[in-house]
């Protein structure tokens, strides 16, 4: 597969995503500068973590105007797989590709640590290799991961199984103490209504190798690759 990793000024997990796809999963990776206007030839797209535009004003607020974002919208509209991790998730929210907004962490601190998330929907292109309800240990590293949306939208997310990951205890209970940032309904990741766009705060690329002592995050990437292999042909290079 040919996976595009979008590079915004200030992205800093771009090399990490590249490393996982290229060196761990032996895929082709194209680094896509944010001024590109086309995504032709790509099978899937990752918006990596980092501090695009320094996170000034609001996280993701400025990056969403990068020229590449129109191409990403087109790509998503035509069914292409788009995944935003951390800052990438924040950008997808600001760009309206996913619903809701991020508030500052309840603690007001940046927090970097392992957390556990429960797979709430294992029938997405990004979680196919997981079992429903499976608990994954994946690190977070953010200051604004406190997901918010209004009650109507939240009910919609719940009803459409758009909540993909929830913060939980190691044994899979969704509790207040397991919530590292105050996120509504312990939401750690959501998908679009159509299902082909995913945003998640935890960093699966940080737990995708044996040497790092944790391979849980790798499931997300292998799920993605698997569903790309199985997709109907018409979507190629959309």
């Amino acid at each position, binding site marked *: 597969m040919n996976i595009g990793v979008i590079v915004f000024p200030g992205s800093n997990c771009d090399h990490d995503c590249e490393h996982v796809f290229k060196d761990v999963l032996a895929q082709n990776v194209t680094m896509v500068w944010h001024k590109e206007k086309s995504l032709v030839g790509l099978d899937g797209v990752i918006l990596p973590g980092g501090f695009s535009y320094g996170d000034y*004003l*609001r996280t993701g*607020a*400025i990056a969403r*105007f990068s020229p590449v974002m129109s191409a990403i919208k087109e790509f998503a509209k035509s069914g292409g797989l788009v995944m935003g991790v951390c800052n990438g998730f924040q950008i997808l929210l*600001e760009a309206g590709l996913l619903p*809701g*907004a991020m*508030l*500052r*962490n*309840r*603690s*007001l601190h940046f927090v970097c640590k392992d957390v556990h998330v429960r797979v709430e929907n294992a029938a997405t292109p990004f979680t196919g290799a997981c079992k429903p309800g499976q608990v994954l240990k994946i690190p977070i590293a953010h200051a604004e991961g*406190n997901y*918010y*949306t*209004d009650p109507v939208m939240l009910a919609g997310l719940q009803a459409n199984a758009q909540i993909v990951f929830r913060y939980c205890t190691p044994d899979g209970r969704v509790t207040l103490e397991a919530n590292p940032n*105050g996120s509504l309904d312990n939401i750690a990741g959501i998908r679009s209504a159509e299902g082909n766009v995913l945003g998640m705060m935890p960093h699966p690329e940080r737990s995708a190798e044996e040497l790092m002592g944790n391979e849980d995050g790798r499931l997300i990437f292998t799920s993605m690759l698997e569903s790309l292999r199985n997709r109907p042909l018409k979507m190629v290079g959309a």
Partner: protein
Amino acid sequence: MKAKIHVTLKQGILDPQGKAIEHALDSLGFKNAANVRVGKYMELDVSETDKAKAEAQVKSMCEKLLANTIIEEYRYELV
């Protein structure tokens, strides 16, 4: 013309920063401060002499960039 823009969290949205400041004020001995809310204040120059046009522009800046209307509201004045 100078635009003065206030962007604040919508009513009903929890403001952890405001809460933290309230708490800090309290422990500094300012017991009678309450309901602290924190927002952003921005100033910028608009090189436009027609007030109506300038207003339209600033409104559009707010809608597009300066505020996230899912969680924030904004107001502005031009001087």
